[in-house]
């Protein structure tokens, strides 16, 4: 079959011409070829069945121009913040000087220019394992990002925030890739913030690679929000977890345009614990997709996935979760749960949990539900004096908050809960 080059293909090609000389040319070239083989995912690609990215990105926006503007950025946390703005890491507006000893930060651009093999292998790892076209595109066109290394044995007492904002009033594309590497037995809390300062139809493709050495422990708190119906954002998280590592992820995804968050977590060592949790909020015509693959490669792993979707008006939610248990991964213990509540007749939820089990001594289960607010619960609260909107809000908050019960950092849990309250307060 002859593949006809479209106008869109020509735009992507011009982007690649622009980026291919900016370090890691071998990696970029391989990723570009991988992307070209697959093309942008459409609904015929199973993993993208509910999110038609090809349609959403029919008109690729030009790659963000490097800017030195320093806009006022909202600060929501007591954290050490590392800012990536419009695709470029910005040391000038980051808290670099306050970083504790044992924490090293480098821009992705510098890392690519240096080409240290260990770092390069990690940078490339996303593409080797996911076989996902949008991740390949990210590698081919990556502009910048943060490489954050936390030394073995170190315990961070203050969270580090990786904040990525798009700010332009024009339609722009950005491709960022960041790495968080924890040495043996290191412990840290990382906040991943994805925001938008303007309502322009930005196209934002982010990848975050997490590598935990044996015994390391990471709490990752993700908060995505945005403005404008035209925003198209894909956030990919790729986690490699060595023996005895512990990885807890809690995400609040506030809908804005189309957003897909995809997680590929690989348990590369024995006795790894993974807990992935999230709440998503969508209204208007927002589309929020959470897709994850948890790959148990070795024995005695434990994974817990708990997701809550709240969909109002014509909002659409997607949850696709797959737990893979490879033949060696005996004694794996996995439980995946996705629940959705529809607040309007026009909201939609697509739930697709899957188990792929090749080992015989495992405990795995999944559950998915989708429904309205419970009438009995609503009446109970109203019979105690709560007016309907207040009763509904309390139920929705309770439903969403279940996703954050395992988050030990109280300030961060309070922040996520307060965002949910604000979203509810804006309900019409």
């Amino acid at each position, binding site marked *: 079959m002859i593949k006809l080059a479209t106008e869109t293909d020509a735009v992507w090609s011009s982007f690649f011409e622009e980026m291919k000389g900016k370090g890691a040319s071998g990696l970029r070239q391989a990723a570009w070829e991988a992307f070209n083989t697959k093309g942008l995912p459409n609904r015929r690609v199973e993993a993208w069945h509910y999110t038609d990215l090809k349609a959403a990105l029919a008109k690729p926006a030009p790659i963000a121009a490097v800017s030195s503007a320093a806009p006022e950025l909202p600060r929501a946390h007591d954290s050490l913040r590392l800012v990536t703005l419009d695709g470029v890491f910005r040391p000038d507006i980051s808290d670099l000087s306050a970083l504790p000893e044992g924490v090293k930060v480098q821009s992705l651009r510098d890392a690519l220019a240096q080409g240290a093999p260990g770092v390069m292998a990690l940078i490339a790892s996303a593409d080797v394992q996911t076989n996902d076209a949008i991740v390949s595109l990210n590698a081919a066109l990556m502009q910048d990002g943060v490489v954050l290394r936390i030394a073995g044995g170190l315990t961070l007492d203050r969270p580090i925030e990786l904040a990525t904002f798009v700010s332009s009033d024009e339609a722009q594309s950005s491709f960022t890739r960041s790495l968080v590497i924890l040495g043996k037995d290191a412990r840290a809390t990382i906040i991943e913030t994805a925001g938008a300062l303007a309502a322009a139809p930005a196209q934002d493709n982010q990848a975050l690679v997490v590598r935990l050495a044996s015994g390391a422990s990471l709490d990752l708190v993700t908060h995505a929000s945005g403005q404008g119906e035209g925003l198209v954002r894909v956030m990919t998280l790729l986690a490699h977890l060595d023996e005895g590592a512990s990885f807890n992820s809690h995400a609040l995804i506030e809908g804005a345009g189309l957003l897909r968050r995809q997680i590929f977590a690989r348990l590369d060592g024995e006795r790894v614990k993974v807990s992935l949790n999230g709440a998503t909020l969508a209204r208007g015509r927002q589309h929020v997709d959470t897709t994850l693959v948890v790959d148990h490669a070795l024995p005695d792993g434990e994974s817990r996935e708990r997701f809550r979707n709240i969909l109002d008006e014509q909002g659409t939610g997607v949850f696709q979760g797959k737990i893979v248990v490879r033949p060696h991964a005996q004694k794996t213990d996995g439980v995946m749960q996705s629940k959705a509540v529809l607040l309007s007749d026009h909201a939609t939820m697509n739930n697709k949990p899957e188990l792929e089990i090749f080992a015989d001594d495992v405990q795995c289960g999944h559950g998915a539900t989708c429904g309205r607010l419970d009438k009995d619960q609503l*009446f109970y609260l109203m*019979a105690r*004096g709560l007016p309907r909107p207040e009763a509904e809000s309390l139920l929705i908050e*309770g439903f969403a*908050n279940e996703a954050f019960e395992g988050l030990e950092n109280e300030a961060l849990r309070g922040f996520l809960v307060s965002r949910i309250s604000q979203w509810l307060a804006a309900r019409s």
Partner: protein
Amino acid sequence: MLEIKNLHVSVGDREILKGLTLTVNDGEVAAIMGPNGTGKSTLSYVIAGREGYEVTQGEVLLDGEDILELEPHERAAKGIFLAFQYPVEIPGVATMTFLKAAMNAQRRSRGEDELQTPDFMKRVKEAAAKLGISQEMLRRPLNSGFSGGEKKRMDILQMALLQPKFGILDETDSGLDIDALRVVSEGVNALRSPERAFLVITHYQRLLDYIKPDSVHVMAQGVIQRSGGPELALELEERGYQEYLGEEAA
């Protein structure tokens, strides 16, 4: 206090209450006894304002005011309280958050100031102690993982905090062991006062050994069939409801 006049209620095409009339005076504890499936719970839901029950005829007056047009929360603010036969579990909603929201919502609709946290905490602690509700229970999500007895005690705690004018106890004894029954009954008895009235709905006489009624009403086939004093409960316990079932039993 509460007057129910010729109340007809349907669910779908089926008429459940067929012209029920009942008056409960200030300070009175009225017991409604009757066989299962006779509309006792329907009556409690209609008074509290649950959706899905169509009132086709009749009135329910609280202190002379018809409450049938009011939303459940408005009825609650006017002093109606329903202790549920099956209190619902609400995972994710902290018990204390709920208690405070309920108390303050009622205060707001009555035009009163909201409770400050220390005052609120003090009230909850005192009331909980009397009902044997532990701090640990208060820290859990509302009714989540509670036993039947714990849920009923939590409902009575809410009643103690909200201080309603008119309390409806819907089969409060169901699922309770003797110890829990005593605790719950003591909680109710402590709230008895000349300004407050209760409607105690039950299938068995047992509850009425603990909560002594002033009047007893036999409900069957959607109406009050007979009214009397406390001795009527004993008679029912002995003779059953057979004679009130009419054609339905045939």
